[in-house]
């Protein structure tokens, strides 16, 4: 029908605005499909890998080798496997050698072939990349030469952390798999056990049962670690949940913003067409026919942009998986796209936008032909807010700008929420980057004695010269097993760990001090009492917090050593670890490990570059979204004020004065929108990282850097100024004749 031609003409006349809405919907669909595709594909990859290769439910060490494992397996209903572990220094890094398991944590060869002959080694691909190694190369370890025959992924090292309390992999660290026979060359290698529950129902209770069983048989357990709190395993799950959780709300927020602005635009078209609609009714057009005509724009726009967004997101999922799996180590077997998400990617914007447009359209189309032909719809109505505002005391320019803004509440909301969302995104990107930097910089910064030597058994007597004794238990908050941390006993005159409060004053060490990160996570302040449970023996303790250590590193509660020993039932003077400035000369057979905290603060290059790339991407998307939103609102404002602009020109307003009145009216809204973005960003960031904290025991406080806030502010206002300049050209084109020829107010 002839009316159809109009649809194209309307779109062509306002192409800038429709392109803006197209991009917004496109971004929403693109993000939704990419996030759900990545979430689903990663989920499937992880599930396939962990199920097929029997990812451990628990890992633990014992004070003596386990005897009769077959009997233990029968009693506990678990598969129990033994593997060897040995850390060995390599140039610019460290390699953790592991022996292959056959029952639990079965290795997956991702390239090359498996271990066939003595001297073969499989390496993780990240280690190969960082150290420039490839299949066919040779690697010298402890004087022995190994042939690199392939790359490997281990279910218990999906995220290759050296220590589970680290938040990111140390630079140059990796894993390698050599045969049990080759392990003979490394006699100091530790023996570690892993268990996998055959019956997958209520795994947690079965794990607790295994713990009891082993304790009852006289084994002393150390480093008992559940898969769900083991960051090597849980980190990837947290990220998948994050992608899934953030996918739908972000896309929905974008769609809702589009609904708001498209609704305003449809309302404008329908209102200005009131007389035409009335005339068409009078000529015999049916309501349905008119609904179809006016719905064509939102349906067409949302369908095309939703489809384009969905189609373009599909090829992006593969590379994103590639980037993510470059931080994680697991076999990439294929991508998975949930059909429901794909349908939603196209249908969701269509349904939401069409519905919002229909609601607006229905209000006008309900009126009779005679009513519509009177042209009342075209007349500008004064809304409640405009009527209530008492502006007499303000200057004319202020009054004019305020009225220009509140003239359309949905338009105002769109601008405010849009700028807030763009600012929030921008600030979130910068703040996450900054928080990582701060965490990275503070890692180990409180350690005056950076070397921590940990024994397999509790030690008694005096500590070696130049070393300080410490004792520790891995614990969790009573009622929340996922909130894990260490309670550490230190001598009151310890100099190994620096403890300062928020004012920079030294904290006494003869009291209970909690690190800021843990206090922040658990919501504790000085004077509070914390109830904790030991992960080793399940005993509960209460501690009153006397001080908060201002550090972003580690989740620790420090207390005087003797008080610690008394509380945990250890003999006076006993200790499990030593703090020292230099490496101590102790038989490594007695040790479970040596950590150098000053070498922890080098983040893996892949993680750094992924993070930087994410920040750049977020900055581009946020700026683009901000520009589109401001452009849409400004161009709409110019369109709605055409006759006023024309009138102002007739009255002798200079070009700059008109531009100031019309274009600058959004400045306070953009200003408020930006500052609203800050608490919004903190809320979203804290929720996101609070959730991750729950999942993987990681704490990431949102540390706002005023410089980044300033950069974001400047960026948002630069976008605003550029958009204003672009719209200013449109303003200049409005002629005085428009109002001279106009027929009504």
């Amino acid at each position, binding site marked *: 029908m002839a009316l159809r031609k109009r649809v194209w003409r309307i779109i062509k006349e306002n192409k800038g605005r429709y392109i803006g809405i197209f991009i917004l919907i496109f971004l929403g669909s693109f993000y939704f499909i990419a996030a759900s595709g990545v979430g689903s594909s990663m989920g499937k990859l992880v599930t396939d890998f962990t199920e097929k290769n029997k990812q451990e439910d628990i890992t633990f060490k014992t004070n003596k080798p386990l005897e009769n494992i077959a009997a233990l397996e029968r009693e506990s209903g678990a598969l129990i496997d033994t593997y060897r572990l040995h850390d060995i220094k390599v140039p610019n890094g460290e390699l953790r050698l592991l022996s292959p398991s056959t029952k639990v944590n079965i290795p997956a060869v991702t390239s090359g072939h498996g271990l066939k002959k003595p001297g073969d080694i499989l390496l993780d691909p990240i280690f190969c990349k960082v150290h420039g190694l490839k299949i066919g190369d040779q690697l010298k370890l402890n004087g022995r030469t190994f042939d690199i025959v392939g790359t490997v992924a281990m279910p218990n090292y999906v995220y290759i952390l050296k220590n589970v309390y680290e938040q990111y992999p140390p630079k140059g660290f990796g894993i390698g798999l050599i045969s049990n026979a080759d392990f003979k060359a490394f006699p100091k290698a530790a023996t570690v056990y892993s268990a996998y529950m055959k019956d997958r129902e209520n795994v947690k209770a079965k794990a607790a049962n295994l713990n009891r069983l082993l304790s009852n048989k006289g084994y002393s357990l150390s480093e008992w670690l559940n898969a769900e709190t083991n960051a090597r395993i849980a980190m990837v799950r947290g990220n998948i949940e994050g992608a899934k959780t953030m996918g739908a709300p972000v896309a929905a927020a974008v769609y809702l913003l589009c609904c708001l602005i498209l609704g305003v635009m449809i309302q404008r078209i329908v209102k200005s067409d009131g007389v035409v609609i009335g005339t068409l009714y009078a000529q015999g057009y049916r309501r349905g026919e008119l609904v179809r005509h006016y719905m064509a724009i939102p349906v067409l726009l949302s369908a095309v942009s939703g489809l384009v967004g969905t189609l373009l997101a599909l090829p992006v999922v593969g590379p994103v998986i590639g980037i993510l799996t470059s931080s994680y180590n697991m076999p990439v077997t294929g991508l998975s796209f949930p059909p429901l998400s794909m349908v939603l990617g196209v249908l969701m914007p269509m349904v939401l936008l069409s519905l919002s447009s229909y609601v607006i359209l229905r209000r006008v189309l309900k009126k009779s032909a005679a009513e519509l032909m009177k042209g009342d719809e075209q*007349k*500008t*109505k*004064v809304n409640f807010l*405009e*009527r209530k505002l008492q*502006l*007499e005391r303000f200057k*004319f*320019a202020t*009054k*004019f700008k305020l*009225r*220009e803004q509140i*003239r359309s509440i949905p338009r105002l909301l769109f601008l405010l929420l849009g700028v807030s969302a763009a600012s929030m995104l921008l600030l979130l990107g910068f703040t996450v980057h900054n928080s990582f930097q701060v965490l990275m910089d503070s890692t180990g910064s409180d350690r005056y004695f950076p070397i921590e030597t940990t024994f397999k058994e509790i030690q008694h007597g005096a500590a070696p010269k130049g070393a300080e004794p410490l004792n520790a238990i891995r614990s969790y908050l009573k009622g929340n097993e996922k909130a894990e941390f260490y309670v550490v006993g230190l001598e009151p005159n310890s100099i190994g760990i620096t403890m300062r409060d928020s004012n920079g004053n030294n904290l006494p060490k003869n009291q209970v001090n909690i690190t800021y990160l843990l206090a922040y996570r658990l919501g504790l302040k000085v004077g509070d009492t914390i109830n904790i449970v030991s992960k080793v023996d399940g005993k509960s303790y209460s501690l009153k917090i006397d001080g908060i250590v201002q550090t972003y590193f580690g989740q620790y509660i420090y207390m005087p050593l003797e008080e610690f020993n008394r509380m945990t039932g250890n003999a006076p003077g006993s200790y499990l670890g030593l703090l020292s400035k230099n490496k101590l000369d102790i038989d490594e057979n007695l040790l479970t490990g040596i950590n150098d905290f000053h070498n922890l603060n080098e983040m893996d290059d892949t993680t750094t570059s992924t993070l930087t790339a994410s920040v750049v991407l977020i900055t581009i998307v946020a700026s683009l979204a901000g520009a589109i939103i401001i452009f849409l609102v400004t161009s709409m404002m110019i369109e709605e004020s055409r*006759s*006023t602009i024309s*009138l*102002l*020109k*007739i*009255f*002798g*307003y*200079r070009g700059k*004065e008109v531009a100031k009145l019309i274009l600058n009216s959004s400045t306070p809204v953009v200003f408020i929108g930006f500052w609203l973005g800050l608490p919004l960003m903190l809320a979203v960031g804290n929720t996101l990282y609070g959730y991750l904290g729950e999942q993987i025991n990681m704490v990431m406080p949102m540390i706002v850097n005023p410089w980044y806030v300033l950069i974001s502010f400047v960026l948002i206002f630069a976008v605003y100024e550029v958009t204003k300049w672009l719209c200013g050209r449109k303003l200049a084109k409005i002629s*005085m*004749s428009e*109002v*001279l020829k*106009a*027929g*009504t*107010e």
Partner: protein
Amino acid sequence: MFLSVSNLTKSYNTGIITHVLKGVNLEMKRGQIGVILGPSGSGKSTLMNIIGGVDSADSGTVEVDGERITGLNDKQLVEYRRESVGFVFQFYNLVPNLTVAENIEVVSNISRNPLQTDEVLSAVGLFNKKNRFPRELSGGEQQRVSIARAIVKNPKLLLCDEPTGALDLETSRGVLSLLQKVNTQFGTTILMITHNSAIAGMAHAVFRMRDGEIAEVRQNSELIQAERIEW
């Protein structure tokens, strides 16, 4: 002469060349009311737009109070409109989301020596409605606001394009008598275009236009009071 138009021509090219003004000559003294009468398409509005500095002529001159308008560039025209001319439109052209007082401030905001908004509002009888929005006023009241807006800058020349074209007789009389009052009270020169010849009686000078030319000029020695105009 306060207003002097000589040999003014203007044509539009919309595929076909239309000669709208074909050498118009017109003169008015300071403080007079002038009325341009003529049917649609006779060139009244084009003439008024050129005098008001919102349109340009092809040839000929327009002088207002000794200032040659036709020689001014765009920037100078802006200053001319800003300081010297007031406009009253047939359909009022009020800004719908500004109150009555604010509509007047639109102009006083950029004037060098504006009259007080309240004084002007009292003069047009709308002081008690200064916080209303245009939609809440009758047509006559809206036109009064439009007049108040035009005179707040105390212009040398007030140009009125069919000021009663959208109003009934009684309301029109009120508006016309207000214009008469502005003319006497502030000494403002008023040029009005209309196709209603009944209005001619209240003008000092009457110009009848036909087909782009001034067909007749008449000077009224006795003016009719606006309240007594009939049609």
